[in-house]
Structure formats: structure tokens, C-alpha cells
């Protein structure tokens, strides 16, 4: 019997489960490699050559090269891994959230200072489909 994924109807959210972990493995292993200076140096010396060391899908590789943060998550990336690539680019967690939400740095930061994104209208996918607070 298939596992029931009762968390798949949360809008704007990927739950990094075992299936995503499998799909994103090479992408995530690439990202975490950047936590070490010698690897950051090697990546800086040539992104394409460095990426050849990881058997990612073409889509994953392109998302890395494009720094398409949401696409990486769609393809099995996890935020704690992709944040290592962001850190390499000098982007912190909050700036990354500004990019992923499409709000931009300033508006996102202002939302957080004002108390963050309310759960109201943001609990279920149907709330977004009906034109909720996306």
C-alpha cells in the first residue's frame, strides 16, 4: 500500500521526504560540498568542470547554473543544501527567501519585522487556488 502523504496539500511548500531525497541526492551532495573552502575554490575555478563530478540531471545542472532557487527545490533540492550554494554567492537565508517568494529583499524583510506571513489563507492549496494570499 502506498504511503499516504497528508502533507502534499500545503501551498508553496515542499516537504523533503524520502522520494525527494532520492531525486535530489546528487544535487544536494553538490551543494553541501561547497561548505569546504577547497571545494568553493574549485567551483570558482570552473563551475562546469566542478559540476561534472556530480551525476545530476540536465535540469538540475541547469537550475544550479541559472541559480534558479525554486527550480532546485522542485527538482529534489532541500533548502539547507541549496543555502550552501546561496552562501557561496553571498546570499543569506533571508535574502534567499526574498528571492524564492518573489517579494525581493526589502518587502520580505518588512513582512518579517511586521510579524511574518500569517497562516490564515496559507494552510491549504485550495486557499491559494481560490486567489488567497500567495
Amino acid at each position: 500500500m502506498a504511503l499516504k502523504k497528508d502533507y502534499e496539500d500545503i501551498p508553496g511548500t515542499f516537504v523533503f521526504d524520502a522520494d525527494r531525497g532520492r531525486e535530489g541526492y546528487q544535487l544536494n551532495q553538490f551543494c553541501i560540498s561547497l561548505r569546504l573552502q577547497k571545494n568553493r575554490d574549485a567551483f570558482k575555478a570552473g563551475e562546469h568542470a566542478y559540476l561534472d563530478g556530480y551525476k545530476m540531471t540536465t535540469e538540475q545542472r541547469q537550475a544550479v547554473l541559472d541559480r534558479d532557487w525554486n527550480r532546485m527545490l522542485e527538482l529534489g533540492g532541500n533548502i539547507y543544501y541549496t543555502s550552501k550554494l546561496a552562501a557561496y554567492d553571498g546570499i543569506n537565508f533571508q535574502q534567499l527567501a526574498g528571492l524564492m517568494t518573489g517579494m525581493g529583499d526589502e518587502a520580505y524583510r518588512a513582512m518579517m519585522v511586521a510579524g511574518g506571513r500569517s497562516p490564515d489563507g496559507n494552510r491549504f492549496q485550495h486557499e491559494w487556488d481560490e486567489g488567497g494570499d500567495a
Partner: protein
Amino acid sequence: MARITAGVGCSHVPAIGVAMDQGITDQPYWVPVFDGFEKSRRWMKDQKADVVFLVYNDHCTVFDASCIPTFALGCAPEFAPADEGWGPRPVPVVKNHQVLASHIAQSLILDEFDITIMNEMEVDHGLTVPMSVMFGDKGVNDEWPCLVIPLCVNVVQYPAPTGNRCYQLGKAIRRAIESFDEDLNVVIFGTGGMSHQLQYKRAGLINKEWDTQFLDRLTSDPVALSQTPHVEYLREAGSEGVEMVMWHVMRGALDDDVEEVHRHYHVPASNTAVGHIILENKKDQREPK
């Protein structure tokens, strides 16, 4: 014998560590975050803890995706702060009570909690930030005032252990510690949370109401609270809010009846609601030494 006398629940937001390391805690953004830990630092000093048992998670820093232990107990002599991509935090190396850690490892497995034993491990902000907020500024050449036994929990790849499993593990940790002969005062930390979502289009979710009921029920209704299903954390407290299962380990290790001696809650630190609580076993119920 060794004894757990108190528990600390505490967020471990990396930006809090960065603010301390950069010396910018007096900026208006940070003042309300750190004000709430002033009493905690005095309290922590008064405890004269010999050992902190610190429950935290690694954030894909030390553990990559090749091996994902649900519960990993730090049994190494010491744990150095890890490079998380911008250099290691300039804080002291964490020293273990290695004999007690080995005793706990052995006791837990015989008590049917099949933990992973880590004989070499670095630690990330999940461990060092709670140390910094509770003990104050320390440089690389200083020492933390007590020994630390780290328990690293997987909360990154779904599913994290259930709240119930964490709560029961807390009870087993208590049994293990209380069967250790040396007279030791142990304080247990449960860290992570509170509500936050770092990823994708719903990033920035904060649920103060949900966090507040969590803090309330930690004292008054811990068993029912530990039954909270994962999907509720994910939906109500954000995808990264599920870190809060680690607080149940701390709660399970305390008496059923505890006293809340301090609470602090502030939004935001970066993307996250900062939550903090101090719970003490009631003194009259402690056995005399």
C-alpha cells in the same frame, strides 16, 4: 548519582549567532531578541550545571545526505564548531563528559532506543547558538563553563522522529543519567523552532498563536502535546517548524510536574519566531543528595 534538574527550550537561529559574533546585539533589530536571554544567563550561572545534555539538529553541515541517522549521540572527546559555508563560528570547542556519554549510549540501546554513536563529530549552529545565548559571549580561546553531551536528531528529511518517540527517548535519557554513579547536575536543552519556513513560496510563515499554545502546553499538557502529528507542525508552524519535536526530548526527561520559571518569545530573528522557556523540576520533589 547524576540527576537532571531542569530543562531549557530554545530556538537556534543561525543569525542570532552571527549577531553575537559580529557584536551587533545592541542594534534595535536585535535588542528585543537578546533582552529575553538576560535572565536566562543569570539562571544558567546559578544552576552550576556540570553537564548540558543538548538536543539539536545538524543542518546539512556535518551530516550530508549519504547517511541520515535519526538519533546520533556525541561520544567523542570534543566537538569543534563546523564551517557552514562562511567559516566556523569563533566560539570555544565543546568538551564532552565522555564517560557519561558512553554510559548513556549503552543504557539507551539496552533500553531499546537504537541510537547511532558518533566518535568523531563537528557541530553547527544548532548546538553552538543555544550555548551562546545561554552562556553569553565566549571567544575561541575561552572555555564553556560546563561539559556538553550532544544528541543530534534528523529533522531535515521527512519524517523526523515522532513527538511521542522523542518524549519517550527523553524518559530513557533520564533513566540512563540517573543510573550513573557520579554526582552530577545535568540540565537538558531541547532546541530548534519555533514557527518558521525557510523555503519556497510560503517562506516567512509565522504562527504566534500556535507557538504560544505549544509553550503553554509544554508545562501543562506535555503528553497530549507530544502526540501532535507531523502534518500539524508543517502546516501550522512552517516546514522547518517541525524542529520543535526536539523539545519533547527535553520535556520527557523532566518530572511530569514542572515549574515554568522563564519564557521569552519574539518575532523575528531573520525568518524565525524566537521561542525560549526554562522549566525546573519542583525542588521539593527532588531527592536530597
